[in-house]
């Protein structure tokens, strides 16, 4: 429906990763923790003042720095 950046997602919203806009290193780092296109992702929390975003994927909690979370495009179902 609507594409958003991971940073713009509200807490407790669930979405699907559509695209990762970033260099090879960013993609590889995200991939190694399971953030790949098509992956379901749920935002749990975030730290204010452009702090990290905390998400749940496959029942594991990940903390993603703001600059990196901005590279993750998600789609809410």
């Amino acid at each position, binding site marked *: 429906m609507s594409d958003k950046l991971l940073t713009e997602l509200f807490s407790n919203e669930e979405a699907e990763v559509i695209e990762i806009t970033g260099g090879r290193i960013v993609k590889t780092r*995200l991939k*190694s923790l399971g953030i790949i296109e098509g992956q379901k992702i749920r935002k749990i929390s975030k*730290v204010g003042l452009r*702090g990290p975003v905390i998400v749940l994927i496959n029942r*594991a909690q990940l903390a993603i720095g703001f*600059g990196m979370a901005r590279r993750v495009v998600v789609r809410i179902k």
Partner: protein
Amino acid sequence: MKWVKRKHHPKLPPAELDIKSDILLVGHPNVGKSVLFSRITGIHTIASNYPGTTIGYTSGQMCFGELTYDVVDAPGTYSLEPLNVAARVTVDLIDEAVRIINVVDATHLERHLPMTIELLAQDKPIVIALNMSDEARHKGIEIDVKKLSQSLGVPVVPTVARTGFGIKDLIQKAFSLEIREQKIDKNETTHPGHHPHIPHHNKSQTAKNHEHLSEKDVWAKVGKIVDEVQTLHHHHHTFGERLEDLSVHPVFGGLTALLVLALSFLFIRAIGEFFISGKIGIFEQAWIKLPFGIETLFNVAWEPLMMKLSTLLGPGNFLHSLLIGTLVEGKIDFMQSFGLLTSGFFIPLGVVLPYIFSFYLVLSLLEDTGYLPRLAVFMDNIMHKVGLHGYAIIPTLLGLGCNVPGIIATRILETRRQRFITATLISISVPCAALQAMIIGLVGSRGVWPVALIYGILFISWIIIGIILRFTTRECKPELLIEIPPYRMPSFQALFSKLWMRIYGFLREALPIVIAAIFVVDILYLLKFFKYIAGFTAPIVTQLWGLPKEAIVPLLVGIMRKDVAVGMFAPLVLTTKQLITGSVILTMFFPCIATFVIMFRELKLKDGLKAIGIMLFSVLIIGTAVNFLLPG
């Protein structure tokens, strides 16, 4: 393929060594490889509940049948693509391994299997340890081990490394693996002028007959396997999970972080003081004072003995100055006398050891419960100010215990620049536990606020130096990306064995240096060596820093041991302001010899020299600033 990748990252330091192993433990960070390793070899290693505890690798031996085998615990890595040091080391270790135990987390199978598939393509005999299978059961995750083993084509053994469940079975399976003839081509490796990495080309050739999968296929395959073998049962939110949610909450999480830091500090102080003087309480006021403590022990049991020795030797005698030191008003003062048998024992055992114990007790608790990654999340903003990201808080906290493990732990950071900034900041403005214990002991007698002021000044210098480093070292912005482990109840046996390892490390490594430092100081005093130096450095020490010119002596001794150096402030009769300036300068001035060596090893010569330059400049400026800005 690995060789080509390596060319793309010339900045990464080369992996340390190629080491052969009969069994290599490989897996993601924080899956319990180190605990498993301890179980197999009986060697105690430092294990914690956060990703990246094992930096470098640990090796040990085990007996099976009549033979001994080399077992190696690889650093945790999320993939075999050599993007960071841990992955590079692991890839090299795999090349040299006979068989591999791939440790996976049973609670997050889908996240661990992609690397398992990468490992299978390496064409080595593999057995899979499905670790934390007890936690999986509690979380309502059921895994069909037989099916999983069939789908992967390798044996799978459920284990619980913490309790030892399944370890025997795992070892048996590992040794019944068929070891294929390694076709490492002798003609190739002995070929003169050949690149040493040539065997890897052959590896990719042998891997060819294995199915080669693209990234998408790997994830699809993993999805399919997981769907087949894993059943999720509904389970209620446990208390631990509620705490997990709370500690990453935007508001409560931040408050929790502050509370945890404040409580940790208070606990360390309270436990340390309890062991020193038997006092139970916070700060000055004591609720209960028990009639024992290490200090009391020294005063009641050791002092009379030493006084007897003193009269026996006769003051003024060479041996007396060496063993007992100088008497203060006809009596032994364990802080000031500076003899090998008086201050030489009292400083490390009576002042520092209690704080080493309490610091590492609290740190181990934070490590094992899994709180540290959450702290990293809330420290991310502050750490960005100094050009780092939140995870750099972990080496920094370790540095508060001892700078050496702190600087080594900077390897968990991804780039050379982050490692440089973190290590430089640790060596300049993070006081180790021994130094802090002595500062609290000596300066604390003037009240709480001078001690608080020292911490405040060091923290501000840390920020200022960090900001300058951030803008002077250019590279793309570092970003935090970590897995937050679930909270776990620490195993007290593991916790105390880790605590003991750290305390033993202190006793074995620090105690001899403390005694050697006091020996050297006494000899140099007798040779009147310090008089020359004091005259030479007087302009800086007296004019800029406002300290008596003799204060250069403790500053120089600080190169050997910082705790001994603080002790040497005692006989100088300093004002409170001078004590504050002196402690700040001592912390920042040359790191102790052990830190110095590690810094050059980790940062290499050029960056090591750069860090030393920054240190000298900072100590000059900040020492002067404190002297002129602090009201007398």
